[in-house]
């Protein structure tokens, strides 16, 4: 097989890492549950990007299979997550994750 990509593997991994950290930061900092869900999606895609890069580097199809799996999982997660957020909004009239806590700690 010939060289498909002109971008070097470490660069792709670096972008993937940056995406993952952005997502993680979003999960930790954002209070709006919708943004938390979006951040989670970013993290999943970052993982998928790393798989693509690795598959290209080693010339193996396994990584691409994994990406498809991740996409399916992400779609399912968004479905469940959004419906949960919707229910929470009906219940508490807010989607602020900190407000929803019923704990006293």
């Amino acid at each position, binding site marked *: 097989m010939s060289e498909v990509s002109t971008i070097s593997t470490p660069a792709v991994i670096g972008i993937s890492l940056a995406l993952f950290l952005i997502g*993680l930061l979003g*999960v*930790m*900092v*954002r*209070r709006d*549950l919708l943004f*938390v869900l979006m951040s989670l999606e970013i993290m999943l895609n970052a993982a998928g990007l790393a798989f693509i890069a690795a598959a290209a580097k080693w010339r193996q199809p396994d990584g691409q299979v994994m990406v498809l799996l991740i996409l399916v999982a992400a779609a399912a997660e968004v479905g469940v997550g959004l419906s949960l957020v919707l229910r929470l909004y009906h219940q508490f009239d807010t989607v602020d*994750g*900190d407000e*929803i*806590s*019923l*704990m*006293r*700690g």
Partner: protein
Amino acid sequence: MQLLWLVPALPLLGALVLALMGGIMGRRAGAVIGCASVGLSCLVSVAVAGRFVTTHVSVFHQILFPWVTVGSLQVPMGLWLDQLSLVMMVVITLVSFLIHLYSVEFMGGEADYSLFFCYMNLFVGSMLILVLGDSLLSLYLGWEGVGLCSYLLIGFWHRDRNNGIAAQKAFIVTRVGDTALAIGLFLLFWKTGTLDIRQVMQVVAAPEMRAVAFAAGLLLLGGAVGKSAQIPLHTWLPDAMAGPTPVSALIHAATMVTAGVYLIARTNAVYRAAPTAMLLVAIVGAATALYGALCALPQRDIKRVLAYSTISQVGYMVLALGVGAWSAAIFHFVTHAFFKALLFLSAGIAVQALGEERDVYRMGGLFRRLPWAGWTFLIGAASLSALPLVTAGFYSKDRIIWAGWFSDQGSAVFGAAALLASFLTAVYIFRVFFLVFLGHPHHEIERLPGRPMKLAVAVLSFFAITAGFVGMPQILGGFSPLLDFLSRAVGASTPISSRGEAGFLVLSAIETLTAIWFAYALFVRVPAWVVGLAKAPGYEMVRQFALTGMGFDSLYDRVVVRPYVAAARLGRGDFVDVFYNILAFFVWMSNRALSATESGRVRNYATGLLLGAVLVTVLLLLR
């Protein structure tokens, strides 16, 4: 006779069933189980007694199951039936059954109806274990069970704080005596190496065991003093009136207070071997008989009169034990059980009829309106004050006074004290009778006794009159099967010469009749000099002194309670606590720190996950 085990087992089973299922069964079922268990137990004990008497066996020993097995020590749970425990058993079950029957109606409006019967059954069962047990250990088991149930029942109306305090007082004061008893039992076990009562008594009777017998005698007396409410541990009994009336009747007549009398009668070998301890028993008894009668005189609360009366009458029994008249003491227990239960139950009818009015000066005029209570109270009062010839109390009490005066261990002091107390007894009880049942009515009658209550007092009235005819004095034919029967178990009583008995009987009869006339003159006619006396200086002080039980309560309060409370306050912040306080502080701090992490905020948890993942990664890289 093999059915003997059923006698204590039935009430205990009843208590168990009521405790487990009392909440779900109806009131009617609770009452039926509570009564039937004791009633059946009574029937069985009468049947066993019949077999026992007709087959002329001297003892019957039934070993039920191995109970305590530690090393070489083996204590089986066994029942020991001889003449003494037989008489106690029959009287206890019969009187208890009648009191249960009475309670069915008396406690009818209570919320914790089946719980009440549960406690009552447990009470009766414990008392039966106490009198039937063949070892010192089972005696002690019953002893403690009785103490527990008295606590539960005195404080039965626990919503009123004072009742709880009275219950605690009864428990703590008798505990002083219980501790003495426990030490006495340890001593006996240590010196004799066995717990079987019969063997212990045989060993203790040996001449070289004199010192042990003396010490054990004093310690057992301590136990008896606590449970039987003798001076100086009697202070719990008047306060025990906080419980419902049937409970008072049960505690005073059939169970609890007579446990001490039984204990001394059962261990009489100890006292035979230690005449000094026996003399002390007699002194305690005579002093208490006189004390109780004096304190009963000025009481306004009808139940408190009866409480002091019990103290006084049990004092008679203890006096009889102290002068070696073992059978006479148990004879008086039998008659006392009937007439004191009767007095409490008929007083209960009167009190309930007047809407819980217990002040004798505010009851008045009940004889016509409550004939059932009036007649039965009259019979009980006559029996208590030993009305000559026709009542049971006459035969039993005069035998004690007679023995106290003329037996070898007796003396004129004991006899005179007993005679004076007997005079006062007739005065105080007929004072109550005249004030409550004659005179002017103060209240409307709110309710009349129903069939169970009438039946109970009627049967008790019958026995309060006839129970004495089985112990006739020599001069009246000497028909005394009960006393002869008892003396086979407790041994021959100290001999008394029957010379001058006729004169003595006449004297005591005149004394009782004078006392009743005296009470009539004093409290019905109310002559002018009595009114004058009441205004005399010092009279009020004397009255208050007797009314408060001659200052025993305030004495104990000053000598024991207050120093103890002060010491407890002083010890509150001592150095021992520092260590535990630091420990508690650490626990509290870590609790605070950990509960802060459980915030319920999702992003905090996510941060925690991240930190954990980083930590694990770093650890893996550093490996």
